[in-house]
């Protein structure tokens, strides 16, 4: 049984569908990259997986001991208002909120967990800093640490590198790769196909045709070859 099994899923807003006939599975330890043009429905898919909105049809089955609220999540743009006064520690700790239920205050273990995840993301020295004064890369690390407080199993990342400069982008990719090595299942949205092919174990490509398969299958498929050819001109990362 896989962590997440999506069968014949359709998504959209108010009965207006933007994607139909989606099928894929995510197993423990996978690194799934979801690629596709802007506006193809990647963020909508992620919101549907997180139960922030209802699917228009089809099913999302959760299995293999995963609970729906054990999915950590890194939002695309932080909806957080520019002015929000919050320290890094407060934000990371808020990742533990889901486990609290009705308990009003965080336990010692949860505070410990927050500290561990901050050091794992290399932001312990920023713990008392104000979130809004950090650089883009630092902010992403804070939100990653928060997501790690919410889960030990699955992380959903929506364009985690958008707006970061090239060096920080690579750092971010490496960080995510290490998390995956440590056993955390990754589902990452990206429109950087070259990076997807480099890091992911599975690819879900959303465009007029939908492709789902392992990275090797993708490299051999027509759709994969076509898009890689297109990108190769640009950055030529692919072997």
């Amino acid at each position, binding site marked *: 049984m896989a962590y997440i099994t999506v069968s014949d899923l359709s998504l959209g807003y108010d009965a207006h569908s933007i994607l139909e006939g989606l099928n894929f599975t995510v197993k423990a330890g996978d690194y799934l990259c979801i690629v596709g043009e802007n506006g193809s429905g990647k963020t909508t898919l992620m919101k549907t997986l997180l139960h922030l909105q209802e699917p228009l049809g089809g099913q999302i089955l959760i299995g293999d001991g995963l609970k729906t609220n054990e999915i950590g999540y890194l939002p695309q743009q932080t*909806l957080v208002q520019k002015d929000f*006064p919050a320290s890094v520690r*407060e934000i990371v700790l808020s990742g533990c909120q889901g486990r609290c239920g009705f308990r009003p*205050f965080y336990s010692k273990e949860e505070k410990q967990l927050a500290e561990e995840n901050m050091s794992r993301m290399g932001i312990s020295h920023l713990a008392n800093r104000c979130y809004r004064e950090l650089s883009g890369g630092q902010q992403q690390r804070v939100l990653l640490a928060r997501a790690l407080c919410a889960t030990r199993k699955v992380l959903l990342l929506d364009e985690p590198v958008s707006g970061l400069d090239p060096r920080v982008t690579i750092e971010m990719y490496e960080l995510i790769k290490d998390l995956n090595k440590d056993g955390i299942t990754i589902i990452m949205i990206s429109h950087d196909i070259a990076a997807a092919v480099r890091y992911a174990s599975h690819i879900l490509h959303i465009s007029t045709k939908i492709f789902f398969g392992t990275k090797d299958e993708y490299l051999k498929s027509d759709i994969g070859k076509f898009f890689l050819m297109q990108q190769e001109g640009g950055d030529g990362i692919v072997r």
Partner: protein
Amino acid sequence: MALFDKLVLYLQYPFVRYALIVGVLIALCSSLLGVTLVLKRFSFIGDGLSHVAFGAMAIAAVLNLTNDMVLILPITVISAVLLLRTGQNAKIKGDAAIAMISVGALAFGYLVMNVFSTSSNLSGDVCSTLFGSTSILTLSPGEVALCAILSVIVIIIFILFYNKIFAVTFDENFAKATGTKANAYNLLIAIIIAVIIVLAMNLVGSLLISALLIFPALSAMRLFKSFKSVTIFSALLSVLCALSGIIISILAGTPVGSTIVAVDVVAFAICHGAGIIRGGMSK
């Protein structure tokens, strides 16, 4: 020294002491959700609700209720819940609904007072509901007790739900996705705001409530950078402003509500200036 003597003299009257106690409690409550109000669209709800509360108060005045909170509180709480619902419904523009309800309540309230009121001093009545000119000094012991109990409940709920309020205010989607019942807490926040507004109406009148709710948080946000320090500082500042406002108004004979708000505005100006100076130094 004469001023001080005058103050001591006034403090011997129970109604002045009540005013100070109630003023401090209400000021404390109303500052607590300031950040949430400022940063979420709840600020519109807050504004709309204060007008609803005015309409309810007009009806209560006409009905000659001895304790008008019995009517105002449920009406305002129900409106808060309804406004939150429409705000979440993407199809009806939440802001437009709020504007409609609040202006409607204002007009309706004044109409009701004008048509049915038996009072000889109508414009005085309206003025004091809008600006809260004397009501803080005319509270009965029963009203004082009710205010105090409600304030304490609001403070306890805020402390118990502090972490959840932070999570939901900072990033509602993340909170929802990871298993926090964000909608339930939004509802709770809206209800607390409604209760606070009804309380604050006693202190500053319905038109000035937003100022009491928002200024301390805005001031604190100039100077502090974590949610906790902003919350604590705005609570302290709000209490300080309310205390000095009440005392000034007693000594100088100015209207209580507008004096408190004026003090809040001055405090904001000072904090804003201090924030700029500090920002300039750290650069």
